[in-house]
């Protein structure tokens, strides 16, 4: 496995990464508009968005808001009416559309595996289009199947219909990653699988992304998925108007306007706790009285901790690291952390209005009343 990875690195330098620096490249949408003939309002209306290399950017919004259209313009499955789309500084509209798409991974909800081809041939498709030699392709196919948790020996020669939905989507992801594209476009990739499989796929997806650091544009209508997976979230309203473009933390603690608030839904504070891990808290020393209580691992989220406290009716639980109980966390600690997050958000409110960040979208202004006044683009 490591050998094949090394070979790939040497022959395909763009994919080389030591796990910390992104292999992805930046994407910039500059005034991109899509208007279908015969319609009054644009499906996507003058969207400006800057995506940093290696980020997962979630496009969330209600049905028909134009999020999928926005994504599909990046690989030109839909041609923009006007505006520029820059990938690593290069305008995609100046490139050959077919060749462009070979450099962009593409995963969709319907998966779209070729039913008449084996799993191996499915994953090998883009490398074959790019003219890689056979040995390198089969090496790469094996590697990719392993990455998505499918044993190549068992699955390579099967056909798609012999796989479950979850397995098929793993193949879909492997296929999109096969030619090591710097960018991935994913359109509700985990939307059609059962909730348990979805959670598992999401977790594994995050694991893989941590190593490969692609620039990923991910469309979903599920806000919880956006919070879980996104480095940044763009909440879109009709016509792909960006209501807010910010980190999940920011959106949860200070939604830009009523629309975003409505989309975040109830329990924003609880959702916020899902993003905080135990290691952000100062622990109390271990409490001998808690001998019988199952300790929580250090990497638990505060949401897990609260859940455990409520479930067991305790106001403090022990914390372990590598099997050793290293301390105790109390309900008071949790509440204190929530107060801190509030204060941080309030402090930000004072600064973001004056701060002009490149690519910052007016919606990031958290002041509800001022929200409408900030609609004009910077």
């Amino acid at each position, binding site marked *: 496995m490591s050998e094949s*990875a090394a070979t790939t690195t040497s022959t395909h330098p763009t994919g080389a*990464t030591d796990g910390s620096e992104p292999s992805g490249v930046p994407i910039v949408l500059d005034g991109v508009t899509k208007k279908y003939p015969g319609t009054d309002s644009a499906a996507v209306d003058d969207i400006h968005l800057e995506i940093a290399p290696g980020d997962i950017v979630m496009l969330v919004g209600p049905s028909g808001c134009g999020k999928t259209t926005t994504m599909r313009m990046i690989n030109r*499955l839909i041609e923009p009416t006007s505006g520029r789309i820059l990938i690593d500084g290069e305008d995609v509209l100046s490139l050959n559309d077919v060749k462009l*798409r070979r450099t962009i991974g*593409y995963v969709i909800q319907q998966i*779209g595996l070729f039913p008449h*081809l084996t799993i191996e041939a499915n994953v090998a498709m883009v490398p074959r289009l790019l003219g890689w030699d056979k040995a390198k392709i089969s090496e790469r196919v094996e590697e990719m199947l392993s990455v998505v948790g499918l044993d190549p020996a068992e699955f390579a020669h099967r056909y798609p219909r012999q796989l479950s939905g979850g397995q098929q989507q793993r193949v879909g992801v492997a296929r999109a990653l096969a030619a090591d594209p710097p960018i991935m476009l994913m359109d509700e990739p985990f939307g059609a699988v059962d909730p348990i499989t979805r959670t*598992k796929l999401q977790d594994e997806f995050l694991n893989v992304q941590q190593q*490969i650091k692609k620039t990923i544009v991910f469309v979903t209508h599920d806000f919880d998925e956006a919070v879980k997976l996104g480095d940044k979230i763009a909440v879109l309203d009709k016509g792909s108007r960006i209501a807010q473009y910010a980190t999940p933390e920011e959106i949860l603690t200070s939604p830009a306007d009523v629309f975003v608030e409505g989309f975040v839904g109830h329990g924003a504070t609880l959702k916020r706790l899902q993003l905080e891990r135990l290691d952000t808290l100062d622990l109390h020393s271990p409490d001998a009285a808690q001998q019988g209580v199952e300790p929580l691992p250090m990497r638990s989220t505060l949401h897990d901790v609260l859940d455990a406290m409520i479930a067991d009716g305790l106001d403090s639980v022990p914390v372990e690291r590598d099997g050793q109980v290293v301390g105790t966390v109390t309900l008071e600690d949790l509440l204190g952390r929530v107060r801190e997050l509030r204060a941080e958000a309030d402090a930000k409110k004072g600064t973001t209005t004056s701060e002009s960040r490149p690519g910052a979208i007016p919606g990031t202004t958290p002041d509800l009343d001022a929200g409408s006044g900030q609609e004009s683009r910077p």
Partner: protein
Amino acid sequence: MTTTTTPSDAGTATEQVSLGTAPLTTRRDRLFVWTDLIIPLLCLAIVSAELYYLSQAPLDSIERDLVSNARIWQYTREHIVITFVIVVIVLAVAVPLGVLITRRQTAWISPFVLAFGNVGQAAPIVGLIAIVGIVFGIGFWPVVLIVAAFSILPVLRNTIVGIQQVDVGVIDAARGMGMSPRGILFGVELPLAVPIIAAGARTSLVLAVAVVPLGTDLDAGGLGQIVFPAIKLDRTEALVAGGLMIAVLALLIDWLGALAQRLLTPRGIR
């Protein structure tokens, strides 16, 4: 590229997903099953019985000459050749036309082509043969062409349907991965349409077998050369023999078509 998971990660994930796997049943070894032999054996039995009957029956000299073994085999061979040529022409014309109709740039030809196909099938074949005989003369090719026009519609329609029924998600994925339109047509759409196109071709084959005898008067050859003289001369034994051979031929050709359809269908969708 460090897209490697640690061995333990990959291992556990694989184990877990393996649990949900359906038993691996490939049908490669079931490409032919013993029931496939029923139709050819039945045909063989019918033909043998008929030939035996003819050799025993009290036939007059005209009849004996009409249904001699030599004639039956020669006409059958002719019939097969004509049918084969017709189907090659039908496939060579209908599949490309069907493809053109499903391309966005050439979809405008659709009403014209379908009208042609419909007229071809709806027009009274005997009348058409008469007209062709008058205009183009007699012989092999006039009959081949008129019967081809008559049996083009099943292949044409099935080509269109076969391409249109390909899952839009598959096409979207193919486009999104950077397959060229030509690559998608030959690598995805046509392979996935094969079973349906082949079904149309089988229908065309059977149609052609059944219609070719009507061209007998244009001297194209085939088993019609037994049937029509038998009608005119009122020789029932010969009429039955000719009809039986045509029916058996249709059955056998359809059977071969079924085998070809199965063989040509990609394994993953078989």
